[in-house]
């Protein structure tokens, strides 16, 4: 059923009994042209674009738990394309463009809200670095505005501008950035993919790969063997474990990132604000809760929960930026497992094993990339050639030296 004002009214008048499930709970078939492992945003988007853009009709997404139960449901929902390096910027801007048409394309309200992403700077050197990044963005045709202190005061008068250590001197604003409803993005892609014939198989954990003459020919799952022409891994957080089943070692460590939501408040923070002197970012959900986060905990973890020192550090960052937060109570906090790659940038590439494709290493920036990640991964799988905006995300860049290190900290995943 298509969603529209008319379907809304029709169902309102008939007691809301006309709604049907948004996607089928599919049984796995013995063979597919492409099997995507991982039913998060990236995996479902990949399946959708495989069906829509490349005309593939026999595609399955297999998911260990329920769709969207990993990082797609655990992030802080920020979308933006304010990157410096050429290998990144074109890709994230393509993602931003897909976000802008996403709801019409998928016929689903994903609550995409371009409320602006503001990165604050606190020193002359930081202003110069942000000016450089803003100029790099504009050279790629992306919107960026360097604001001075007076302009920030008009936007967010309650920030701690005269902080003794980190006075706010201005910021870099991307007005087209903002937030989207993370679960709705998962459901939207699932529903749209299902309507194009994609089988979404939940509670189906991959336990191994079937091999023929060195190539992969299928997956062994808890619901039986599924043969496949090609297999795509989109399992950020568990990439090393899955790749390990195919005897691949990846340039990735798994780390835990925590996120937080406060009690509901009246509208206070209009856009997304990031603190430039520490690692802290905050926005306000439409329900009123302040959604915020900061650094990863900094040690290898698959636990989906973190420790108190990081919680304290994040809240201190928030207090340094917005003293008004002091009496707000944190309602919930949680952890997600990040694929921290060795240069802080993702991987969308073939693997040395024929038929096996890899989408991994999203660090803690995977949500904003969801549409373009699916678009480019589908292109790679269908045509066996990288999409032009994702061709820098190679698996072998660590051997060739073509790293994409936005932060410039080197091969130390806990510092990216």
């Amino acid at each position, binding site marked *: 059923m298509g969603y529209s004002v008319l379907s809304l009214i029709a169902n309102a008048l008939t007691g809301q009994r006309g709604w049907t499930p948004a996607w089928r709970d599919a049984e796995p078939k013995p063979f597919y042209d492409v099997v995507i492992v991982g039913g998060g945003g990236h995996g479902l988007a990949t399946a959708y674009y495989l069906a829509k853009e490349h005309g593939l009709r026999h595609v399955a997404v297999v998911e260990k738990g329920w769709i969207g139960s990993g990082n797609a449901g655990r992030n802080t929902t920020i979308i933006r394309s304010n990157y410096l390096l050429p290998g990144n910027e074109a890709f994230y801007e393509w993602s931003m463009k897909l976000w802008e048409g996403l709801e019409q394309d998928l016929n689903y309200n994903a609550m995409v809200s371009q409320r602006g992403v503001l990165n604050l700077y606190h020193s002359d050197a930081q202003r110069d670095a942000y000016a450089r990044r803003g100029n790099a963005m504009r050279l790629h045709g992306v919107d960026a505005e360097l604001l001075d202190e007076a302009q920030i005061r008009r936007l967010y008068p309650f920030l701690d501008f005269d902080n003794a250590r980190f006075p706010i001197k201005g910021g870099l604003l991307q007005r087209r950035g903002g937030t989207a409803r993370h679960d709705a993005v998962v459901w939207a892609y699932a529903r749209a993919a299902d309507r194009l014939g994609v089988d979404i198989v939940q509670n189906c954990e991959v336990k191994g790969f079937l091999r023929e003459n060195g190539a992969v020919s299928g997956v062994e799952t808890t619901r039986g063997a599924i043969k496949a022409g090609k297999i795509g891994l989109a399992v950020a957080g568990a990439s090393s474990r899955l790749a390990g089943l195919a005897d691949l070692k990846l340039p990735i460590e798994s780390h835990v990132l925590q996120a937080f939501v406060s009690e509901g408040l009246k509208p206070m923070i209009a856009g997304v604000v990031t603190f430039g002197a520490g690692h802290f970012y905050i926005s306000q959900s439409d329900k009123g809760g302040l959604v915020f986060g900061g650094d990863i905990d900094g040690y*290898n*973890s698959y*636990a989906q929960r973190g*420790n108190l020192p990081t919680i304290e550090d994040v809240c201190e960052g928030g207090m340094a930026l917005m003293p008004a937060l002091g009496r707000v109570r944190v309602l919930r906090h949680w952890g997600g497992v990040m694929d921290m790659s060795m240069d802080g940038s993702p991987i969308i590439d073939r693997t040395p094993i024929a038929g096996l494709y890899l989408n991994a290493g999203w660090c803690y920036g995977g949500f904003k990339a969801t549409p373009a990640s699916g678009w480019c991964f589908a292109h790679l799988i269908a045509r066996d050639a990288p999409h032009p905006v994702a061709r820098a995300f190679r698996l072998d860049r*660590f051997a060739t030296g073509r790293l994409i290190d936005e932060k410039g900290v080197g091969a130390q995943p806990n510092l990216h």
Partner: protein
Amino acid sequence: MRIPCPYCGWRDAQEFAYLGDATVERPDPAAADAPARFHDYVYLRENPAGPHSELWRHSAGCRQWLAVRRDTTTHEIIAAEFVRGRGARR
């Protein structure tokens, strides 16, 4: 999370700095396949879900490097020992 430093006893993990996987070993730069082995050493990790050997430095304590064995799925510390002298026992 607390780490049992062999010198200082159980201390909060906040006193320690994390470096990462303790199982990787710097290859011989004179080896014929040194570039490939350095790539593996610098970039590739086992990244296990379960017991993991890793390097922590007690930077706000005795400043010694520790090899800690810790379960990455539960954060349980299994063992901790000084790195110094570890090579001699191998």
